């Protein structure tokens, strides 16, 4: 996983609430057995017309937003299915930070597994930041200090310390958990005694 530290970009603003994972990446692209290559189909239905031509009105089709690394969106972002294809598509497009006032749980945790930072801010602050998108000005995100710097201002954001550490160091969850193999084994042995039906033997 890529380490996340600081990020500077003109943000793209998508002022839609309840953006679901079907919108982020429709199901016809879930038939892949790979994690990569999904970026071109990100927001497919909003991005292309029936003939596969780019829709000019859509923000990610416009300069400079087609190179945005930061996406600002309406609340309840990433609701719907558990598909990790949604963060994979964002990542493949180049977006490594999303800013919204709330996220669906599974999407939120999927982001961290892929080096994407989902930031939660109040609606008011989001409106303020969206002005930078409108004016095509850069903002920067500093994960270490947990702040977004825009113009002469900065906003602090909250993040779970463990998740932060994993992002900063690009840590692999599985490797961390496997370090606790003893504890897992212990648990399993007790389980065999306490609830023998679980292992069905």
């Amino acid at each position, binding site marked *: 996983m890529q380490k996340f530290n600081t990020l500077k970009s003109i943000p793209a603003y998508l002022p839609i609430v309840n953006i*679901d994972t079907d919108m982020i990446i429709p199901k016809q692209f879930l038939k892949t*057995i790979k994690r990569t290559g999904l970026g071109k189909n990100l927001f497919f239905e909003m991005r292309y017309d029936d003939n596969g031509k780019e829709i000019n009105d859509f923000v990610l089709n416009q300069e400079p937003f087609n190179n945005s690394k930061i996406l600002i969106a309406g609340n309840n972002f990433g609701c719907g299915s*558990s598909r990790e294809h949604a963060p994979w598509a964002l990542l493949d497009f180049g977006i490594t930070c999303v800013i919204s006032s709330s996220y669906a749980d599974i999407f939120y945790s999927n982001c961290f597994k892929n080096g994407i930072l989902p930031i939660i801010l109040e609606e008011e602050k989001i409106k303020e930041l969206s002005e930078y998108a409108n004016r095509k000005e850069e903002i920067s995100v500093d994960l270490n200090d947990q702040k977004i710097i825009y113009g002469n201002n900065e906003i602090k954001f909250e993040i779970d310390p463990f998740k932060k550490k994993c992002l900063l160091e690009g840590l692999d969850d599985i490797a961390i958990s496997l370090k606790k193999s003893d504890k897992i084994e212990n648990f399993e042995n007790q389980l065999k005694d306490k609830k*023998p039906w679980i292992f069905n033997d």
Partner: protein
Amino acid sequence: MSTTLYDKIWNDHLVDQQEDGTALLFVDRHLIHEVTSPQAFEGLRNSNRKVRHPNLTLAVADHNVPTTDRTKGISDQESKIQVDTLESNCKEFGVQLFGMDDKRQGIVHIIGPEQGFTQPGTVIVCGDSHTATHGAFGSLAFGIGTSEVEHVLATQTLVQKKAKNFRINVNGTLPLGVTSKDVILQIIGKIGTAGGTGCVVEYAGDLIRSLSVEQRMTICNMTIEGGARAGLIAPDEKIFEYLKGKPMSPKGENWEKAMEYWKNLKTDADASFDKEINLNANDILPMITWGTSPQDVITIDGKVPNPQNEKDEDKKNSIERALKYMGLTPDMAATDIKIDKVFIGSCTNGRIEDLREAAKILKDKKISSHVNAIVVPGSGLVKEQAEQEGLDKIFVNSGFEWREPGCSMCLAMNADKLKPEERCASTSNRNFEGRQGRGGRTHLVSPGMAAAAAISGNLDDVRKYQN
């Protein structure tokens, strides 16, 4: 200290807890399917890891499989690769698979309970958001992403943070023709699609206790549509009765031991919840969704909303956007919405009771001539049972197509899908834009309401057709 059912299951599965509250949770049951697992197996292979407990893992192909004649295999190349990949991965890693030609094949959330793989008090995960379904058995069941699937395969555990406790009490009795699907649609309408974010919901109250096991699954299934991580119901005699003798249920002495444990799985009387709401079942009517989010619900005797009545600018825009996509005019009556297709199936409403409920309405009737209707049983066993009861004949005689089991038009990854602007009364769980096919328009309803819509050719009140 008094604890909730969720607290109890949580505490009983803690392998490790860090100071910041991050926990490592043991996973008792892991379900996998073809769409969200290939990258997880690839990850295992790349890092030379094994599946820690193949016998706690069960795989099935459901999302991509054709629902028409399967003897010729899968014609869509990409779908075929995914289904074949699942098969070879299961072989390589020693995981039990119900292949496409297995009678036990079906939607992952239908086969788990059917086999007795789903059990009370367990932690159950699957790379699929509707895993919440299994909560009907008093298990902590939730959907996970593919990286987490890989994590569970490798370690049989999951990194989690504790969610909040949210209780939804439903008391009273349901009016005739009103089902658990209407109850959950009503709940989502009330709390909104983000209403349960960060919570695990426990459904309680005498209405919930009166529901059959299958109706409970419908409610828990759609918990995720209300944004909650999981939904569960304390297990009772109905659940134990349901599980008794199922192929993967505990046997003999183990059954006795399990029962002893299961019987204590309930929230303490004085346990407190972070959030609680109450609903009166007597007030619930047959529901439909009019928009593109499961929270966009109205009763069948209601009207489509008018954005002009909405003061909040964002909400007004989102109503306008939804009406435009759905091709509806403000204030039109729900029963004036003409439909082209009907889909009965999915992990929400593809079980035997759902098919019975629809068949009861369809018996000796014909569906409207302009309606195309399909029924897709949730599993091979549901299909077999329905055929034994003659339900297939009722469906076919009324004009429905009788299909092979799978997810089908719930998400339209196979050939079953809506064309742009086609309108469908569907028993599935999501009415998102494009969910059932690009430009397709979905109205979520109960199986009885789907049958009524098929007969009338428009969304209609199922109570009209109750004998």
